[in-house]
């Protein structure tokens, strides 16, 4: 297990370095003058030169990249002052350190992702199990059609519709907003409720479809038939035998989904005006704030890569047939 984790972590670091390099070169080597983007509208040559010097943009790109990477690990000194350890540089627009902005925004994304994931995982798997349990009946057909419909919905449509109906129309739900959980748990809950529900509606469909097909497949497996032949109750067969094999692929998808949600659910955050990582990314794109975008990109990639490893590790616990080498 430890060897597996060590090997995968090493691979993950390599992938992250590659992603950072590709992103950095695309961002800072290709556009003609990144400094011009930092300089704003009233830009004269002197201030342009100063920005170039302050941000180190006058150096060759590989040198810049090296300094950027060293900055993440060890901190970095700019002409304007010292930037402490995980240093991703300063925003072109707000002049704030990138890292502290990301840290500020992260709780919103975390609340959205974890809450939403809890809802869609439980409901999705539950519905899929019921459909598989009652395969072929109207319950199955009903849920299957519902899943198809759900999978074809888009947050930018359903989300806005939900806002119009439940928030401004009927007024039975609060305007989505993030309140720190530690300050006021009730407000935190009511502020995130609508985003969770809408996010779940869309993700749930995928999970229930997959759970159903996996369960149907598993119920035809030899070990399930053996369990049946032994005379175990169908409930035991269903939940102790078939379920274990069915859940592994679902965990894979869940890991990928959670990883990408933690890296910022852009459309959801944008629709509900939640100021998380995803919205930060969109804002940085609109303002061409390259350092900020670079930071968000790296943090999001890291979330995805880390969750992939966690998923593979979780496999071994759930499915006894999987042994990690």
């Amino acid at each position, binding site marked *: 297990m430890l060897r597996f984790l060590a090997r995968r972590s090493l691979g993950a670091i390599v992938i992250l370095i590659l992603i950072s390099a590709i992103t950095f070169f695309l961002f800072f080597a290709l556009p003609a003058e990144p400094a011009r983007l930092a300089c704003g509208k009233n830009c004269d040559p002197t201030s342009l030169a100063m920005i170039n010097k302050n941000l180190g943009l006058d150096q060759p790109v590989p040198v810049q990249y090296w300094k950027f990477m060293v900055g993440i690990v060890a901190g970095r000194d700019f002409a304007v002052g010292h930037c402490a350890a995980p240093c991703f540089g300063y925003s072109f627009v707000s002049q704030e350190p990138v890292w502290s902005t990301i840290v500020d925004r992260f709780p919103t994304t975390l609340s959205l992702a974890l809450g939403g994931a809890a809802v869609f995982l439980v409901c999705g798997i539950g519905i899929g199990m019921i459909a598989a349990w009652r395969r072929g009946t109207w319950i199955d057909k009903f849920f299957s059609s519902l899943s198809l419909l759900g999978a074809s919905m888009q947050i*930018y449509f359903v989300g*806005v519709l939900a806002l119009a109906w439940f928030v401004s129309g009927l007024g039975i739900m609060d305007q989505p907003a993030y309140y720190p959980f530690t300050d006021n748990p009730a407000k935190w809950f009511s502020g995130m409720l609508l985003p969770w529900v809408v996010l779940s509606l869309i993700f749930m469909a995928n999970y229930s479809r997959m759970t159903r097909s996996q369960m149907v497949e598993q119920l035809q497996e030899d070990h399930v038939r053996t369990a049946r032949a032994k005379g175990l109750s169908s409930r035991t067969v269903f939940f102790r035998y078939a379920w274990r094999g069915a859940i592994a692929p679902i965990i894979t998808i869940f890991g990928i989904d959670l990883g*990408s949600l933690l890296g910022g659910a852009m459309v959801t955050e*944008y629709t509900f005006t939640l100021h998380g990582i995803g919205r930060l990314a969109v804002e940085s794109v609109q303002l061409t704030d390259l350092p900020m*975008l670079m930071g968000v990109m790296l943090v999001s990639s890291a979330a995805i890569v880390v969750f992939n490893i966690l998923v593979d590790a979780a496999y071994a616990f759930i499915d006894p047939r999987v042994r990690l080498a």
Partner: protein
Amino acid sequence: MTSPSQTGVAEKSAPGGTESEAPAGLAPRQLMWRRFRRDRTGVISACVVVFFFAVAVLAPVIAWLYGKDPYTTYGLDRPELLDPLTGYPMKPNGGIDGEFWFGIEPKLGRDVLTQLVYGIRTSLLIGLAATVLSTLTGIVIGVVAGYMGGRTDYFLGRLIDLLLSFPQQLFFVAFMPVVTAIFVSPQKETPTYFRVTALVLVLWLLGWMQLARLLRGQVLSLREREFVEAARVTGASPWRIVRKELLPNLVTPILVQSTLMLPNFVTAEAALSFLGVGVVEPTPDWGRMFAKGANFYEGDITYMFFPGIAMVVFVVAFNLLGDSVRDAMDPKTTR
């Protein structure tokens, strides 16, 4: 797969009567077509899909027959259409009437029906271009990796791994301005055709890996089969083996995957336009309508309703079509 062993299965699934007169003489393609024709869901969703493409192709004709265009600000030209204070349509339900079938846009007062029709055209064009490019890339890389094996396979596999660990949506959003900045200087206005090209490029860049990985696996197992071996022994060139032996056996996964790819690209493109980094004003676009609609959902949700319903119908039809195509080509799958 259309391997020879499948004729037995196909024969069994063909019902008695006129259709099974000479089932052994039917090509796999004909058998597939027969199975597909009998699948009512599949036929209906195929009709819906064809309808959407027809709308996209015939957008100018529709606009001409209907007598409006997506750019004219009817509401500003005729003040009686819009409320002067709020800018919302005077008539209820977003100003739907005999003249404006789907209502008019708040503030600017443009016609919704023609915007939607032209928007579908833009979105389908981008989606289709990205699908074609991604499918071709996926085929080439998947087949090369699977057939060559060894070091080529290893490096292509790592490339796929690397690209798959990019945060996809974020990549789409982040690289739009970069791709644009490479070719257009920031001081100048970006032309529309260029934005469309950039969108296609960005979608394509991260769209081909799944298909490539799938095909690689298929080729890997096909490569060891007797008929490929036989072709190799008789001295067929690798190019001929790929073209005559491998590709015909890969038609099913390619077709199924690209049917599922297209709606994904269309919704991804719409998401980009919704976030304001895709197609921008004044070009009509499906996703841009959602961005607009989100601005005035409090006063006029009707504006968003038609594009939204259209998109749900479109994606549902495509998903059902994908399932039906798979069922028709591979009757062994159970649902």
